[in-house]
């Protein structure tokens, strides 16, 4: 089940959002639950705390109450990184850039400029990518680490340092673990391509078995492809 949570204190805008949802969501999928709020409330807090199903939050940044849309987004992201957030706003560009990055906001839609079309496209995109916001969560005594599966490209094992090295789109993390332990924390998009490598198959652009390497969608060439794992890889790819 997917829930749409609309938080908008302007009745006219709320009506427009209702119309878009009726057109795009309700007509296509019956397993949809939509709730409307005008402000932050105890009931809304309970909905945020319930992470058992996927949600799409559509909310205004500037609510008339003390708690703004940004504050609600902050509360959501404290416990839930799988739900999507869409802001309906007239905020300036600079804040948009910051919050888009920090709170993983799917989109900022301007209230008075083509809002219906943009909202419709966003919802379609969210359904298309199927809420792919699952995360790898690892903790040690120093730090808690959470990374979207989709942003992990591959994971290798460093024999000398005896650590696993998680390669993501922008960073590299070293952890005192072994490959089999970390593979249990991953989903089925990850497959073993080498004795010392697990790769996100959705991120592989080319498998080159004769030369024992694969190329990622980022263009990076990775020399961790072993023929020993060819059958398993070809079975799922």
């Amino acid at each position: 089940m997917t829930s749409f949570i609309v938080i908008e204190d302007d009745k006219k805008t709320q009506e427009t959002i209702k119309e878009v949802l009726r057109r795009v969501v309700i007509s296509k999928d019956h397993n949809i639950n939509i709730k409307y709020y005008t402000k932050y409330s105890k009931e809304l807090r309970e909905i945020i705390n319930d992470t058992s199903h996927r949600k799409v939050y559509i909310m205004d940044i500037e609510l008339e109450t003390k708690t703004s849309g940004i504050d609600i987004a902050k509360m959501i992201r404290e416990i839930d990184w799988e739900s999507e957030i869409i802001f309906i706003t007239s905020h300036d560009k600079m804040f948009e850039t910051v919050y888009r990055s920090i709170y993983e906001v799917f989109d900022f839609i301007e209230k008075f400029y083509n809002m219906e079309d943009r909202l419709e496209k966003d919802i379609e995109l969210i359904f298309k990518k199927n809420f792919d916001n699952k995360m790898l969560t690892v903790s040690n005594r120093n730090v808690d680490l959470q990374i979207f599966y989709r942003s992990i490209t591959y994971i290798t094992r460093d024999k000398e340092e005896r650590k696993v090295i998680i390669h993501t789109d922008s960073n590299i993390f070293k952890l005192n673990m072994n490959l089999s332990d970390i593979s249990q924390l991953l989903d089925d998009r990850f497959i073993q391509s080498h004795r010392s490598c697990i790769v996100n198959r959705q991120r592989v652009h080319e498998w080159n078995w004769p030369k024992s390497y694969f190329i990622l969608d980022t263009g990076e060439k990775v020399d961790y492809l072993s023929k020993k794992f060819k059958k398993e890889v070809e079975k799922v790819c």
Partner: protein
Amino acid sequence: MLDTIYCFIAGCMIQGILIYGYRKISNFQNTYNKKRILIIIPFALIMAVLNYYNLSSVHTICSIFFYYIDYAFIYRQNKNKVLFYGTVLWLMTALVDMITMFTLSITSIIELFSSNLMILRVVDTMAICLIMYAIYNIKSLNQNLSKVYDKIKKIKFPYFKIFLIIAVITSLGLTFFAIMQQKGFSDIKNIFYVLVACVSILAYSYATILYRNYVLSETKEYLIKNNEFYIKMINDYRVLKHNIIHQLNGIKSVSNKKATNLINDLIEHYNENTIHTQYLKNMPTGISGIIYEKIYNYNQTELQLSIDNHIESSVFDNLTPRSYNLLCEALGVLLDNSLEACMKTTKKTLLIDMNETENSYSIKIINTFNETLDLDKLGTAKYTTHKSGHGIGLFSLIGRKKIKIKTSIINDLFLNEITILKTTN
């Protein structure tokens, strides 16, 4: 055959009394596995066999080694102790043996020995054992020996070892000499002298090597100690300098223009590389002053900064001076790290989110980053992703009682949350 049995009995007796003697003179009071004493049986058998084949010189050497093995095997003490007390025992036994033989030589009993009856040797051994038993029970002797051992133990240089080596070699040499003279091997005597000379030269060479090694290891130890001391001093100075600068920044945030100039001068004294804000007309007060000072240097960059301030009360009034300094220090360190890290990314995004509850203040610093991070080393001493010389900031803050710093990484975001308790009145 009967001689061999007598020799076996004599071997068991002498080993038994020496093992007893070792326990006495070394003041050994621990429990030990008494079954281990049975080791004397195979050794006594070997000695009896050697005696049967008339290999008296081999018999002498073997017996000495067997004694040391007995002590080490039965009492399981450190090798220096075994070596010391073993040698003392051996020398004592040799002395008693010599005195007994001398006493016998001046009496007519020695003539009986010349008949080479083994039973008489057993009787001689028994006599020696009895004398030794009496000697081992002299308390003052044992106490003095343990005092000597304690003094020798304190000598680091292996004089003691060299003394023991020379003592053992000399004793062995004298024993051989006595045996050879007794048996009339006059031709071999010259070869024996050459051998003794060679062994002495070797012992001297070994002693020289031991001495050089000792001097080198002592010098190395001294240098290592000095090095460790200076490293500790440098680290202490770095942490002190680092803390003072951040504490001064905290004071600066609530001080007037004149005080600010004075503080800037002090900061300049401690850190030549800091970019100051003395050109600013007015320094904002409180926490915002520190933030303003830190971000001022990035004014002309593409930094995407957002500050969400939900703190309404006066931070300075609600914290003790120490807590306020600590908060300023933490904020300064984390902002330095965050700004440096986020400027390396394409998004260059930084969010400072300040909140307060009834009891505490919390400041969350969230920044984008693009690094290789060893998560197990993060926050440990000297670990840094920047150039060398960094890495003490976060480390110096972790473990402080009044402040809590929580670090998390969510995708390409680095989150540091500082929580500090308000002063309760």
